[in-house]
């Protein structure tokens, strides 16, 4: 259910080409478009329609106008869930981005031992979120976990039983799982930077740190935006991991929007309000994706390689 969209591939289209060619290209997008409409747009419209009804998931669907929206928007749980979602998003971005860039740059160098390390770093990405959650839950158990087992009091905290600690653990586990993915993106991007730039910098007497700050980072600008978009929008969909790890608890300390949607819909049998939350999630996701695109600056196809 986590949506890991592949990095946006840009097809260069020159304006002078004949119409027949671009027609063929459009036709090739058809299968993907059909899938997207069937599994993306149609359910989305269904959810939008459901948000204006009252339905317990079993009986008949009753149209009820704005009742579900009123119930959802007046629920004090909504701002709380939005805030928790934002915290998870912001904190996991802050934790993941610098580490991913550094690891990506480190792994980009063509050295044997780094290739070996790259394989090791990649392992967390191969595991399912549910398996990761169950493992961490067992390791962090205050009575039977790592801290109690090894006799290290520092590790024997009530990791998942206190609000702030539990939120921290969620961010940590999310980062642990996704840093390899983003490192991989950065590794690829760093390898694309022409070596002539570094050679020129070396001739000018720039040190490693200077090269990193003046060449690598600016060259990674669009990769950072792509990776951030994936992180930020992806963090809206964290459900499985949090559900298994804390079930939104303790209390409602880690109840993100996706969890509160599930709880309303499938535990309290209130499909109307649950659909309203889903619509809010979609809107937040769209707004964030657009915002990040804006931050990336207008003309994205401007050359990054000027002077290279």
């Amino acid at each position, binding site marked *: 259910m986590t949506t890991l969209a592949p990095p946006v591939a840009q097809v260069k289209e020159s304006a002078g080409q004949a119409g027949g060619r671009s027609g063929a290209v459009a036709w090739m997008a058809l299968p993907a478009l059909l899938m997207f409409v069937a599994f993306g747009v149609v*359910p989305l419209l269904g959810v939008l329609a459901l948000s204006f009804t009252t339905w317990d998931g079993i009986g008949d669907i009753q149209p009820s106008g704005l009742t579900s929206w009123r119930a959802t928007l007046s629920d004090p749980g909504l701002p709380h869930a939005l805030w928790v979602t934002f915290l998870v998003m912001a904190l996991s971005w802050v934790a993941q981005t610098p580490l991913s860039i550094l690891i990506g740059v480190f792994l980009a160098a063509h050295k044997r031992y780094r290739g070996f390390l790259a394989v090791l770093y990649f392992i967390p990405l191969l595991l399912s979120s549910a398996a990761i959650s169950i493992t961490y839950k067992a390791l962090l158990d205050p009575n039977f976990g790592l801290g109690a087992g090894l006799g290290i009091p520092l590790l024997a905290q009530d990791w998942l039983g206190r609000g702030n600690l539990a939120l921290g653990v969620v961010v940590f586990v999310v980062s642990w799982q996704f840093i390899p993915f983003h490192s991989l993106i950065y590794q690829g991007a760093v390898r694309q930077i022409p070596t002539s730039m570094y050679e020129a910098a070396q001739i000018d007497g720039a040190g490693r740190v200077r090269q990193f700050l003046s060449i690598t980072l600016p060259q990674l600008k669009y990769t950072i935006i792509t990776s951030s978009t994936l992180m930020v929008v992806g963090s809206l*969909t964290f459900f499985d991991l949090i559900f298994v790890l804390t079930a939104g608890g303790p209390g409602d300390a880690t109840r993100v929007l996706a969890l509160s949607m599930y709880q309303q819909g499938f535990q309290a049998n209130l499909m109307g309000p649950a659909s309203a939350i889903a619509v809010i999630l979609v809107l937040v996701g769209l707004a964030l994706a657009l915002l990040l695109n804006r931050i990336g600056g207008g003309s994205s196809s401007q050359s990054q390689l000027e002077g290279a």
Partner: protein
Amino acid sequence: MERMPISRRNFLNLAIGAGAAAGLAACGSSGPGSGSGGSGSGNAAGAATYWSLSGPPGEPIRKAAIDRFNAANPDSKITPTFFQNDAYKQKIKTSIGAGEGPTMIWGWGGGGLKTYVEANQVEDLTGWLNENAALKDKIFPSSFGAATVNDKIYAMPIETVQPIVLFYNKQVFEKAGLQPPQSWGDIVDNLVPKFNAAGIAPFSLGGQSRWTNMMWLEFLLDRTAGSEVFDKVFAGEANAWSDPAVLDMLTKVQNLVKANGFIKGFSSITADSNADQALLYTGRAAMMLHGSWSYGIQQSEGGDFVKSGGLGWMNFPPVEGGKGDPSNTVGNPGQYLSISSKATPEAKEVAKKFFSTTLVDDAEIDGWIKSGGVPIIKGSDAKLGASPDAEFLKFVYDTSANAKVFAQSWDQALSPTAAETLLDNIAKLFQLQITPQQWVDSMNGVIGK
């Protein structure tokens, strides 16, 4: 020249966002992924499906019953599927809503059954049970209460009576030189501080599962005010939670939390993994309030803890000055099997035959007794004496038979909507995140919903 790619990128970014959102939406509508395993409601003639809970001690007995039935009736076949407790509760609702439910729906009766009835999803069994009076007569009459909606019976009581029991670790008590609690005051003023001083948690609790916390509220409210307060809530009376006894009970619970009455980290322990019970039989906690089914779990997972007489049990002690009858108990007065109204006539016949033969035969009764349960079948107490667990089984039988009121668990008695609010507020109460007054206010808001 630059225009076209810009709009494309905008579009693609939108697509990423919408894709993520669609992922969420799809996750919403594709709940019963493995529902197809149940293959509708048994299309082939004489084929029926059955969903129930996994894990010991119930799963092997349920499987054995189905195997017996399939062997005795070669022309009909029941296919079982088993799920974890908490997962099952959601799965069964969504699959019934999607018309993908099993022929036989395992449940707890009460509020959940009522939603199925209101949606016309389950068969009315009243007429069939009247025709088969001999069958109906075999079962405890009190077990039919939670199977009845609007004076009609929609489920067959099966398996065992399961009162909530206060379990304790005898070895831990012996080592600390303490006696099992005589009263609530004894717990709060004597046992809790002494066990904490000895470095043992007074009570084990699987708080993340939430219904585990609820059992405390059920007993405390019953002991302080009797069963009338919750009866009013159940009847949908406005502001029924505003009874002063409720505030008093909630304050007592929070005081126990503040006094470290429950094991450290209780709010991240789940009952489904049986970690709360492991804390009791490994001696890290002295006592635990849990369903009587826990006996079977501790027996199968706790090594020789139960066999060596390490496990003690008692009914919840009285509260000083409380109005409730100390013989009262709460829990599950039975488990229930309903027949899907969407099943084929053939599948329904198979289910009824299963109900009237295999589920009340001697092997079924013996199986449950052997697992440490008391069957809902009348006169099964005569068989209890031969069991190695006779002492516990007699206690359960007597507790159930002598209880003036055997109240159904609150989350099962209420509608799913009210039950979710209840469990949510209980979790926050134990987390000291809300005050008793806030608890009462939010619960009054969902009365009758």
